[in-house]
């Protein structure tokens, strides 16, 4: 059986927030806060973050339609050089580039694409997430 390591999350009301780091090929690293969102298909980072890391949002890998609270938006999917969260590092990690409204008090979303890849188990009682190592 594989080791499942717990990571403590930050509670924001009844929401759970994880920290993540994303990096560029020039040595840039940006640490930010992501809302654990099992209702989000994709992990989402601000447009400014991915562009600062050198990703070209005008020539994305693809575009996706996102059903958001205010309607359907079309957003680019780009590969950040690396993504690190919950003790796991992913190279050339696809993320949706979209800037959330400022009132959310988080920088982006940690969506089901990465949570499923990590085989994450979320405990609301302890505010922890366990992932396969």
């Amino acid at each position: 059986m594989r080791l499942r390591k717990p990571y403590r999350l930050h509670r924001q009301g009844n929401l759970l927030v994880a920290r993540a780091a994303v990096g560029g090929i020039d040595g840039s690293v940006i640490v930010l806060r992501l809302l654990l969102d099992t209702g989000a298909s994709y992990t989402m980072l601000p447009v400014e973050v991915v562009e600062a890391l050198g990703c070209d949002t005008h020539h994305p890998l693809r575009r996706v339609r996102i059903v958001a609270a205010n309607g359907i938006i079309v957003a680019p999917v780009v590969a950040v050089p690396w993504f690190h969260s919950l003790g796991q590092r992913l190279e050339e990690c696809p993320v949706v580039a979209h800037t959330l409204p400022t009132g959310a008090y988080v920088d982006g979303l940690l969506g089901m694409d990465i949570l499923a890849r990590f085989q994450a188990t979320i405990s609301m009682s302890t505010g922890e997430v366990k992932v396969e190592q």
Partner: protein
Amino acid sequence: MNVNKEATMDQTISMQAIRERYPGEWVLIAYTELDEEMRVLQGEVIAHSSSRDEIYRQLFTVKGRQVAIEYTGEVPEDLAVVL
């Protein structure tokens, strides 16, 4: 909204000191130390603003550095998020 670029770029201070110095603001920090959960323990404040978007724009001025985006205020208790 204005962004305030910090003049004392070489001043490394603790996250607690940053919270006390810039309460209720968005802060861009060139961190020198993180804990195992990637929380900033200490670093240099590059810019601070009441506007998150202003801090996001500052990311283009810090290429090649290791930075963190932090909000030093409290999240409103009546805030509900539906994304």
